[in-house]
Structures are given as C-alpha cells and as structure tokens.
C-alpha cells in the first residue's frame, strides 16, 4: 500500500519475536525465527529490529509508563533504543520530498520547488524533485534521476484518467479531443500525498488524479512524439 502511494518505507520492525520465560530464563521463539529479516529482504527495506514478547511492555503500556522510562535497562528498552537509532540513521539519509503545494497556474503563486541539486543518476524515476511553469502552456517536471519531462497543458487535460474521461472497466477513451477547448489551462495544481497531483482546469473539470507513475510514462510517450525544429 505504501508503495502504491509512494510513501517511503524507512524500515521494518518485527514484533513478538522471542519469549523469555520469567521462571527458568529460557528463550522460546513462539512464532518461529527469521520471518522479519526474510520479509525485509523480499521488500528490499532495512530491518530495524525485533521486539520480544514481553509482559512488562504490556503492563507498562497499560499503566501509562513507557518501558523505556520505567525499566531503561530491560532487554525490551534496549531493543527500542536500537530501533530508534537505526530509524534516525534512515531519516538522515532519506531523499528530498517536495513539500505539499497549492499552485496557482496564472500567477505562479505557491509554485513548488525546483531542486536540481537533488538529482542523482540512481534516483527514483517517479519521484519529482521539481515542478515548473516553463511557459504559459508547458509544465515541466524534474525527476529524481535527473530526467526532465515537458508537458503541454492541453495534452495533460486530454490525458485525464478519471472515470468521466476513461471508461473504468475497459480503459476505453471517452474524451474526444475536439470537445476540449484549445486554450484549456490549469487554474491550480494541488499535490496529493507523495504520489500524485490534481488539476483544477479552466473548463470546470477537476476529477482527474495524475499519479507520478502515469506522468512519467506520459513523458516518455511525449519524448517519443513528433518534435522538429522549423
């Protein structure tokens, strides 16, 4: 789910790993061992740590005394500290994400950042690090891998994927280019989480959500299109 909406997964924490018997001190892996590490490898995300199955965590939590405060020397507290340290390390190395924006197209008010410095060849292909009104008819998007796409605003209107423009089941296009006015332009562009933008168009249409995945694919089609110097 987080992948779908492009929320970065900083790491994985396994819960209820080992039970230590309060009487004899023997460790038992009630839910077997190694599942957390295996899953983090499958997903390609860092493994931050594994919390034991510890009755003291439950008691402290229910009584409103966090175990890291109440019993800082306990095994559980030490695991929490390890996880927190690993998490901070992940956050320090994490990527630039554009701040949420509401961008008026005509006045360029509230325009998002354009951070060329954040581009790196190994960067993500569907994470924008900049959006720009190149001219009144062109929206540019700079991706984290350093690639730039230029979109004609009417082409963007025509590429709307909403249920009014694309038949939901068959994917058949319902939108006829002839019905879209030639001077159609965004009134405003609003970010949606980390994964998409929404346009309020000056023809009254505003139901389309443009995911960055789709925009990158559209950009590839545009680049392959008919461009010439005249």
């Amino acid at each position: 789910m987080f992948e779908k909406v492009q929320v970065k997964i900083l790491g994985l924490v396994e819960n209820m790993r080992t039970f230590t018997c309060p009487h004899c001190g023997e460790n038992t892996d009630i839910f077997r061992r190694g599942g957390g590490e295996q899953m983090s490898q499958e997903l390609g995300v860092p493994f931050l740590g594994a919390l034991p199955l510890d009755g003291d965590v439950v008691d402290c939590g229910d009584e409103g005394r966090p175990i890291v405060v109440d019993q800082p020397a306990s095994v559980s507290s030490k695991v929490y500290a390890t996880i927190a340290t690993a998490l901070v390390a992940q956050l320090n190395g994490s990527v630039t994400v554009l701040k949420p924006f509401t961008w008026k197209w005509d006045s360029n008010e509230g325009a998002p950042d354009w951070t060329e410095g954040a581009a790196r060849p190994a960067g993500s292909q569907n994470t924008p690090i900049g959006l720009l009104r190149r001219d009144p008819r062109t929206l540019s998007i700079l991706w984290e891998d350093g690639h730039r796409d230029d979109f004609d605003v009417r082409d963007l209107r025509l590429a709307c994927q909403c249920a009014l423009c694309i038949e939901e089941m068959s994917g058949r296009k319902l939108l006829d280019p002839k019905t879209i006015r030639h001077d159609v332009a965004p009134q405003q562009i609003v970010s949606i989480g980390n994964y998409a933008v929404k346009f309020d168009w000056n023809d009254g249409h505003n139901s389309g959500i443009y995911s960055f995945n789709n925009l990158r694919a559209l950009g590839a089609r545009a680049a392959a299109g008919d461009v010439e110097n005249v």
Partner: protein
Amino acid sequence: MLKMSDFLLADQPVSIRAESSLADPDTCKFIVSRTLHPGGPFFFGSKERAVGSPLGEQLFALPGVANLLIADSVVTVCKEPAASWSGLKADIGMAIRTQLRSGVPAILEMPVDNRRQGKTDAELTTAVQELLDKEVNRSIANHGGKISIVEVRQGKLSITMSGGCQGCASSQVTLRQGFEVMLKRVAPEIEEIIDVTDHAAGTQPFYPRHKEPL
C-alpha cells in the same frame, strides 16, 4: 514585460521547436526562443477574431490554420482536420520569424478582458439560452426541473431554478457539475453563475424551513 535580453538577442538566430500534441493530431505547439507577446494566453478561435493581431493575421493567411493561441513565447496552432502538417509547420515557423524580424508587436489591440473575447452580454445571453433550450433543460425536464436566465451582466450569469429544481437538495450538483461544465464549453466567457432561486420558498420545498426552534 519585454526583457533586456530580448533586445540583446535580437541579432541571434531564432529557434523554433514544433511539438505535436500527443492526443490531438490536429494540434501542434511551437516554442520560440524569443518572447512573441508577453502575457496571455491570447486565443483566436477564427480568422475574424485575429484582426488586430499582426501575427495572428499572418498565421491565418496560411491555408489550413483553424485556430491559434499565443502565450508569451509559445504559439499553439490547430489545423483543419483535412489539412496536412507537411509543409505547414515550416510555413508557420517562417511566419513567426518574419513577424519577429518586422519588429511589429505580435498583438496590437489588447482586448480589455481576453477571456470574454469581446462578446457582448446580449450575445452571451443568446448563447446561454441556446444551450439551455437544446441540451440543459431537455435533460433536467426528466426530473421536472428547469433553469431560466435572469440576466447576463459583465460576464456574470444569474439564473433561477424552477419546477422540481427549486428547493431540491441536488440542485447545486445539477448546477455546478452539470450546467456549469456544459456552459464553460460553449461560453467560457461567463465568469460566474449566480443562483438567485429562493430555495426555501413555496409550500413544500425540499429544504425544510424551521419556523419554530426544534
């Protein structure tokens, strides 16, 4: 605003990139390395509308040009479906270069408000009435409703909703998502629709009136 760099660049060759639209084969955007006319977009839906724009007149003189839009350093041209781009793109490039060399502004007479494209309130009233008669009221009549024009003044349209619409909780959906969208297609000059209906009037409006405190 003309920038100083526009004057300094005056002797350098002009480059023009022609980018065909992805979804509309009749449309092509020409991106010029020089500002043609600051501000905009200025849309010319027909040859007649381009009177007063030297660049517009030049471009409409080319066979097959259906409408065009000039915005800053960009010209978007839509051709007649039957016309071919072959040769036309080069001719458009040539016309833009000639225009830049001439030193004459691309657009001379600035309409007071470009979006209204010089249509009078009376002309807008006619266009809106036609939309109501041909499309809107026909479909609203299925629900026993009707939209009537009260007046068009300075691009603002006042309407009343009667019959089944008056007092109906869904009337605002009909108005904003139905009528307004259709209206923007035929009369984009209308800036605002004002619903002057008294939805609480009558003996049985859908909006309940609480004469006594609950």
